[in-house]
């Protein structure tokens, strides 16, 4: 009577269900990443300038990777500033995201009352507006004769002829914050919403001031949500080149994403593009694993 208890047939069913997805991920997620390694540690065809991948690890040749590394770390390395800039932009933009998102998420979770559903809908809305549309909106606003300059020149207080869209780091960071802050608000909201109101009331009943209750109860309890939010905003920023292209387009603000994008589209620089990809991947790997750990623990989804 194998069928009366979860025996053999059941055990076979689950692997069969998982198999197509696992094969897909092996072929189209793991394999492409290996192709990157083979290209970075391979050579370049001297005639066609196309990559010659080295498929076996013992045939790997580190020339291309070392070349890129020396251009980043070595003296006069012209990739170095872009890497440094990436770090600065990501740190500044992510911090700004936390500062904006926390009060918004806190208010929505705790004080929005009957407007909670409406507020949440509006907070989620940016997810259904394409990123390109949202950047296009800012390109329109920040034109030389755009609404921002028009508004600034009202009353003649400011000159109103600011050239926002040519190589301004502040515009790029603004674009990054605008683009990614929704990814911070939602995990923060979910984390803050999960804190029972009774916990805070208990802290207040025990004599904590509002500020103290926030600092010693809410803030520590929302820390995992902050971490998740920071990871969800800063990881995509690491590879972002399009915000930069649309809002600045100047080499003076280019970041790791731009280095990747520029070399991907240049013949003969495939290996170089791969090396940048590998470097960003190495930087991103620890935060990615941290995210996997926190989500597996908090949602209880694990094997």
């Amino acid at each position, binding site marked *: 009577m194998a069928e009366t208890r979860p025996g053999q047939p059941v055990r076979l069913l689950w692997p069969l269900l998982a198999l197509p997805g696992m094969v897909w991920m092996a072929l189209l997620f793991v394999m*492409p990443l290996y192709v990157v390694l083979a290209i970075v540690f391979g050579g370049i065809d001297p005639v066609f300038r196309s990559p010659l991948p080295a498929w076996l690890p013992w045939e790997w040749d580190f020339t291309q990777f070392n070349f890129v590394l020396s251009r980043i770390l070595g003296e006069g390395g012209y990739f170095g500033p872009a890497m440094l800039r990436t770090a600065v932009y990501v740190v500044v933009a992510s911090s700004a995201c936390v500062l904006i998102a926390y009060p918004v998420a806190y208010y929505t979770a705790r004080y929005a009352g009957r407007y909670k559903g409406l507020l949440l809908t509006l907070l989620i809305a940016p997810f259904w507006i394409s990123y390109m*549309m949202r950047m296009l909106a800012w390109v329109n606003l920040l034109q030389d004769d755009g609404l921002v300059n028009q508004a600034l020149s009202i009353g003649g207080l400011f000159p109103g002829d600011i050239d926002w869209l040519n190589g301004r780091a502040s515009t790029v960071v603004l674009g990054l914050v605008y683009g990614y802050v929704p990814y911070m608000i939602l995990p923060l909201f979910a984390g803050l919403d999960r804190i029972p109101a009774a916990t805070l009331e208990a802290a207040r009943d025990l004599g904590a001031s509002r500020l103290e209750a926030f600092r010693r109860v809410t803030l520590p309890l929302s820390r995992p949500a902050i971490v998740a939010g920071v990871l969800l905003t800063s*990881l995509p920023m690491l590879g972002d080149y399009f915000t930069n292209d649309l809002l600045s387009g100047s080499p003076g603000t280019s970041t790791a994403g731009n280095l990747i994008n520029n070399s991907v589209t240049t013949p003969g620089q495939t290996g170089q593009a791969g090396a940048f990809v590998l470097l960003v991947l190495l930087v991103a790997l620890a935060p990615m694993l941290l995210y996997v750990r926190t989500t597996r623990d908090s949602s209880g989804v694990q094997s």
Partner: protein
Amino acid sequence: MTTLVSRVQDGLTRSTAGRSSGAKGHGVLAGVTVLYLLWSLLPVLVAVLFSFNDSRSRTSWAGFSTRWYYGDLERSVWFDDSLHAALIHTLRLGVIATLITVPLGVALALGLDRWRGRLPAGANVTVLLAFVLPETLLAVALLFMVTTLVTPLQLGLSGQVAGLVTFQLSYPVILVRSRLLTIGSHYEEAAIDLGASPLAAVRRVLLPMLGPAILASTVLVFADVIDNFVIVRYLSGDASTEPTSVKIYNSARAAPTPALNALASLMLLASLLAVLVGYAIYRFLTRGERGGSRGIDAFTGEV
């Protein structure tokens, strides 16, 4: 007894008093939230507004017109073949990628949730990693694979669909698994005890219960796919397989007409319609459940 009652009443009035004074004190938070929403949504509304502008300008208003949608016989979305084709291609990608992603992801979620062992655990980590890998890195890796290995995939539709499915697969997996967590395994065990085959238990008991999560992931994947930029750009073969997001990226800085805004507005409409219809059906499917688990936040998998 009376002292206890009075102390409880005292406590109640104190806590309600505290709350109402809190509500006043949180005017600042409410202000920040409103300002954030204005900042977040107004630029996009302005961009939509200017798609109805009666002149070429995207910065000064010249009256209402639908010329950029279909009035202009050369440059409107309806008559400009390249914009028209981009719109059709985007919707085609959305439908095909969603039809592959959702069944593949649901089966993978079921398999990974119930199958214990090292292999499924590793696959689960891979899926979560794919969720947070910076998209640019995955796009370059896929581009490298499609261009260096001989595969059935080509730059263009097939490559784009493969990339989109890989990038989106984690969505249904995460949504369905969190739903499975609340369902538990009792129902299908009961069905098996009552004589159902394991497959029938999944098909006739689990799948109907997963309906809302499957619907939500369908809508989310579709809305995400039609907004995708990074993957579809690298994997597009030529101008004929460039979707709307790539058209926006290519022409946003090159003196575009409001037809570009019109194109973006149409995509926005498509996303919003998909989400609204999906959410309405979701509310219908979950009508028997308690309030908390059927809000817009549960729909988008945020809780």
